[in-house]
């Protein structure tokens, strides 16, 4: 059982897809029900992963089956999770039922196709998080694109086609270069299989590392998205239907940061070290720039989209601090962002469904009309800003501490202003939408959240507080795996970089054994 549970979880949505094929076109209620039940079942199947997870740095629930063996190649269906992927998997299975539930009244046309796309997307995302075979990872990584492309392109807003094509081509452009690097890496390792741990053990020369790292990092940077390759994101977010935006923000973007933690840094440590200043600079620019742009947005959804770019900049900064606090903070912030930005997109969806506009100027004074909505919106806003007591605080705090203690100190100082900026744009938006006079007559009849909508938001709100007040279980389960990543990132650096000291920035004490950070 232990080794099949991951596969069972990943492919359960496919069963839902098969069932959906046989449901008549117009039975929308049944279609929604089947999709929701499938996503919920997937979530419950994934729960034993948390309870059965032993806190250590090993890959667990591992399953490896030969898949393709031909010529020089050996690909395996090799899956497993460690502390890093565990929570991302759970986040995925947790968000999916919520996302599906949110489409109940939002999508009235082509419901069947929509549900099929959502479930296929879930397969792709889960598969990417659990793959320990690089080739398998790449397949799942690309498979995710197709359903998302349809979700944006078919059910999206006015500029849906442009947004969908841009999303597709940006991501594809990044990933094909990664494919080249992946093949080159495979040949450098001298045949065998695509097992990730085997590649970890390689020591590559710095020049090779540089090229491969750039290819991987570019692919992941587009997905994160880092400034200046972020331009597809606000568009895709804004045009996508609510469930699409929620999944895009909560899970798909995490693929990029997960890629850095899982692949780019441990595989190419010395190149990663070499490019740390560049990536940290881009992250900080992302934080500040996206916050400033968010401030002037007139469309709530666009504002949330830009806030995503800023938050992911924080995550990247934490990861590149490459110490226990930084990476843990980054990982935690990935989960937090999934919860709080997912919730924000749901909230935007609620008001859009009611008013069919997202312009801030069309609203004002909603808190009088919709008190429950106002409360939930308030909590989520606080979480997004990172107010103490909510989850956002813990993550951002750890990231900043981590970065401050590493040699990214000055980056941390600049990035902290992003915390203030986020408070400015979020609160200002909240104020303009929720407070003030209820002067627009169309807003005077808005109904408050119904039971379904409250049911969607409650788990998210609960998580905001749980993760804000008691984040220890989350961090503890990740800690050993994070230590391993840090060790991989630094250990091989010592080996690969010492002979060429000039490459290391002054002040980096490369001789400190990594165990010190524990």
């Amino acid at each position, binding site marked *: 059982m232990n080794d099949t549970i991951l596969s069972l979880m990943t492919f359960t949505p496919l069963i839902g897809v098969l069932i959906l094929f046989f449901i008549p076109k117009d039975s929308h209620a049944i279609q929604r029900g089947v999709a929701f039940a499938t996503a919920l079942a997937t979530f419950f199947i994934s729960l034993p992963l948390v309870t059965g997870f032993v806190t250590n740095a090993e890959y667990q629930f591992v399953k490896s089956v030969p*898949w*393709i063996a031909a*010529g020089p190649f050996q690909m395996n269906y090799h899956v497993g999770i460690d502390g890093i992927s565990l929570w991302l998997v759970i986040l995925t299975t947790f968000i999916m039922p919520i996302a599906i539930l949110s489409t109940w009244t939002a999508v009235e046309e082509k419901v069947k196709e929509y549900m099929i796309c959502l479930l296929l997307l879930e397969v792709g995302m889960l598969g990417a998080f659990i793959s320990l075979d690089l080739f398998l990872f790449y397949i799942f990584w690309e498979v995710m694109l197709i359903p998302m492309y349809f979700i944006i*392109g078919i059910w999206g807003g006015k500029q849906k*086609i442009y947004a*969908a*094509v841009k999303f597709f081509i940006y991501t594809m*452009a990044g990933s*094909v270069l990664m494919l080249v690097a992946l093949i080159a890496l495979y040949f450098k390792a001298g045949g065998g299989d695509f097992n990730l741990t085997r590649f970890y053990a390689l020591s590559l020369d710095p020049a090779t590392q540089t090229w491969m790292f750039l290819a991987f990092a570019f692919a992941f940077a587009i997905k994160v998205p880092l400034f200046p390759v972020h331009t597809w994101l606000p568009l895709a977010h804004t045009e996508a239907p609510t469930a699409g935006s929620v999944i895009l923000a909560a899970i798909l973007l995490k693929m990029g940061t997960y890629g850095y933690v899982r692949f780019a840094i441990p595989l190419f440590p010395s190149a990663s070290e070499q490019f740390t200043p560049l990536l940290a600079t881009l992250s900080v620019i992302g934080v500040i720039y996206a916050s400033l742009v968010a401030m002037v947005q007139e469309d709530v959804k666009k504002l949330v989209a830009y806030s995503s770019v800023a938050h992911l900049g924080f995550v990247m900064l934490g990861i590149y601090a490459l110490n226990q606090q930084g990476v843990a903070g980054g990982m935690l912030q990935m989960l937090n962002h999934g919860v709080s930005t997912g919730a924000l997109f749901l909230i935007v969806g609620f008001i859009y469904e009611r008013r069919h506009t997202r312009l801030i100027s069309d609203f004002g004074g909603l808190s009088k009309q919709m008190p429950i909505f106002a409360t939930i919106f308030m909590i989520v806003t606080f979480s997004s800003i990172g107010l103490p007591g909510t989850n956002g605080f813990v993550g951002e705090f750890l990231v900043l501490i981590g970065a401050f203690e590493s040699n990214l100190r000055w980056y941390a100082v600049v990035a902290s202003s992003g915390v203030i900026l986020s408070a400015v744009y979020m609160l200002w938006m909240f104020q303009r939408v929720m407070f003030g006079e209820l002067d627009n007559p169309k807003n005077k009849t808005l109904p408050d959240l119904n039971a379904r909508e409250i049911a969607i938001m409650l788990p998210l709100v609960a998580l905001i507080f749980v993760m804000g007040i008691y984040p220890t279980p989350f961090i503890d389960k990740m800690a050993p795996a994070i230590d391993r990543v840090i060790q991989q990132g630094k250990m091989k650096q010592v080996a690969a970089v010492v002979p060429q000291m000039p490459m290391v920035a002054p002040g980096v004490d490369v001789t400190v054994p990594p165990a010190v950070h524990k």
Partner: protein
Amino acid sequence: MSITDIWSIMPLLLLAVGALSVLLLGAVMPGRFGTGIGVVTLLGASLWCILTPSQAGVPTLGVSLTPFARFFTVLFSLTAAVVLLLSRGYNARRAIRGEEYPATVLFAVFGMAVLSAAANFLPLFLGLEGLTFAFYFLVAIDRERPESGEAGLKYLLMGAVAAAFTAFGIALIYAGTGSLDVPSVMGALSQSGKVNPLLLAGLGFLLAGIAFKISLVPAHLWTPDVYQGAPAPVVAFLSTASKGAAVAFLLLLLPAAGVVEPLRIPLWGLSLLSMVVGNLAALLQRNLKRMLAYSAIAQMGYVTLALLSGKGGGYGAAAFYLVAYTAMNLAAFGAVASLTEEVEPGEVEDYRGLGYTRPFQGGVLALAMFALAGIPPTAGFVGKFFIFAAALRGGEIALAVIGILTAVVSVYYYLRVVVNLYMRADTGNVTASGTLPEMVALICAAAVILFLGIYPGPLLELIGMFAR
């Protein structure tokens, strides 16, 4: 010629006899059994290739059914069977009558099978010209329509020039080496010392002729016009099997040469130009078949890249990609054929909303587009993966990177079809709903695309038997 000789080339005889009997039967009982007999013959020939044990070749005939020949005979026969299934309804709707059509398709497969079984330049040339000759008919078969006639004339003129190049090339090779035996001629190429200039010139001419067949840039100019003008099932056949045969031609020559160094530079240039020009020109096309023509040019650029990375495992990659490409193009043109009533929906815009009104054909067409764009989990991705892996391993790093970047460019025009299928409102232009044989043909093609994308192992093993 003994009984064993006849036995050993049975698939070739089956195809030839099948072609003749369809033609004769057409005179006695017109319009009834052509497609049926054709499909049965083709399946019979493939079964024969799969089931009977390997036998020694017949030196007097210059052909031998090696595993290589069997593989390609099966591929071409099955392709032709799918094409016949696609053509039946299409030809009925567009009033293309007569048993000449299935008979010519069988005859083309006969040419292809001879080509892939050839051990000598003469049957090689005869096979190539035989199949080309069949296509001169097929392209112009819809002779009432001016487009079809124009396409036929263009193909005939360019084909004649190409045939002259090929024949002259073979003559030069013979003059240079005194032999028409493929292994010994190509072996002479890899021998140390100075290479026979006549042999080199001959190979150059030969390559020019083949480049026309595979439609590699700059010998590609006929492709868009012919693809646009010819009937869709014929284009499905032309773009898959005839290109496949020409690639098989190169697959017979190149590995025998050992090192392809003298041919590397021309192949390099052809591959580069085809990938770049094909993909960029496809961006500008509004007509679906024309776009697919440029896409075919680009796809063949990838195959050429595999061919010149032989030492990295490129020959196997080329053979695999050929199978994948055959399935993808059959699916794409098959969908077009089955959506054709009186006139073919030509413009990409004509396919608006068909993903909903014709979910089956729309889905297959979309799948074919994703596969051609090289997106997993489809055969197109696995095929491209092996090509680029072979190229990187064989040291063609620059070409591999250029190829993969042009593949990203190609995503744009392939997606444009998907956009029209699913993201725009229906225009109601297309009224055809497809017949059962067409559905069967499309299901076969789509199943191959998905199966090879998820589980390519068995086919790779099969290819490993004759190519590395």
